[in-house]
């Protein structure tokens, strides 16, 4: 389903629309909730709240308004609400030292994490696999070639294409920063 079709299907509140939006954006919602909350049990709750709230509000998503930033706002709010509720709850254990109390990441940091996750999830599977092995796995091109049982030239070309795509999808973040 293309982006317009996805937006239209979601605006109707149909089960198919919710499913399609979940498949496209659940990774990004999970990523930013994890950055805000750090606790996987809470993160699953934040993702549920996000999609339920988005479904409840789907009628307010105006035609032509892009879905991704709208969903980002709902997801961020859901995660921060849970973060605040947890922060206000009394800890049964000893009080934490002030220096160990973590603050939620900045708006800019959450937005960049959202953008990079969407960009990664948009890559073709074979390119995503190479990028993951390279950055998350810390492997060299030669090691990736061995792991995937493909020629090193194939790994290099997939890596090159993938990073050009990522730069094309993420370049606007650098323009904003500049």
């Amino acid at each position, binding site marked *: 389903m293309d982006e317009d079709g996805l937006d239209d299907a979601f605006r109707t509140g149909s089960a198919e629309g919710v499913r399609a939006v979940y498949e496209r954006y659940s990774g990004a919602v999970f*990523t930013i909730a*994890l950055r805000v909350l750090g606790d996987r049990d809470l993160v699953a*709750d934040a993702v549920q*709240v996000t999609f339920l709230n988005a479904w409840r509000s789907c009628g307010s998503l105006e035609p032509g308004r892009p879905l991704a930033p709208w969903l980002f706002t709902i997801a961020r709010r859901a995660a921060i609400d849970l973060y605040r*509720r*947890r922060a206000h709850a009394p800890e049964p254990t000893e009080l934490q030292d002030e220096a160990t109390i973590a603050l939620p990441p900045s708006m800019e940091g959450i937005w960049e994490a959202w953008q990079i996750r969407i960009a990664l999830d948009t890559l073709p599977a074979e390119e995503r696999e190479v990028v993951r092995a390279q950055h998350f796995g810390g492997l060299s091109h030669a090691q990736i070639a061995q792991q995937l049982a493909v020629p090193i030239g194939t790994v290099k070309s997939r890596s090159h294409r993938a990073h050009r795509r990522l730069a094309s999808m993420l370049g606007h973040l650098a*323009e904003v920063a*500049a």
Partner: protein
Amino acid sequence: MTSQEWLAGYLEDGQPRADTPDVALADTARRLRDLLADPDSWVEPPEGLLAQITTGIDSERASLAGPPPAAVRGHGAGRDGRRRTRMRRTVQAGAAALLAAAAVVIAVVVTRGPVTTDVALAGTRLAPGASATAKLHATPSGLAVELDVSGLPPSPPGYYYQAWMKGPRGLVTIGTFHLRGGPGTVELWSAVNLADYPVITVTREPEDGNPASSGQVVLTNHP
């Protein structure tokens, strides 16, 4: 070289370059490259989360839908139609009364079935010294749950404990309690069974009017 080509090259190899377009771009590129290596950028949502979301949506949709509309009857139905309607209502009322009477009899005769299952719950990092045993009794009215709790402090003012059963179809609350009278057995009731909702948890909830789980799990059988 365009800034986009520069960014692609930097993201790929992370090598500092003499032709860096500007400081802001370099900073952003460095942050993006760090995010590529961050485990949070690659983590996948747990299986079953979509099912829980769609279940929540379905149940909310069902509660909003209300009863189905009454059938529309034509003007020519006449006296026979009205008589049939009266007769149908009489039969329906009689059947409802019979069902209600049967329910009362069942409730009076059958109080509580035998203990079918004991489930051990352990304290989480929020309540490391706590533990509990849930004794589940199947009854005609639902699942009676006796939660024998120890090591869990009374809920502080403004907070309470809430018990839940969780499964692929979603999350169902089975009751709330506070333990301010000291440790002991809490009686809870569930309309869902353990086979479909195998995870039992107790969360700490603020009294803020929000019916959703706070996610602050203090006891669980599924650590």
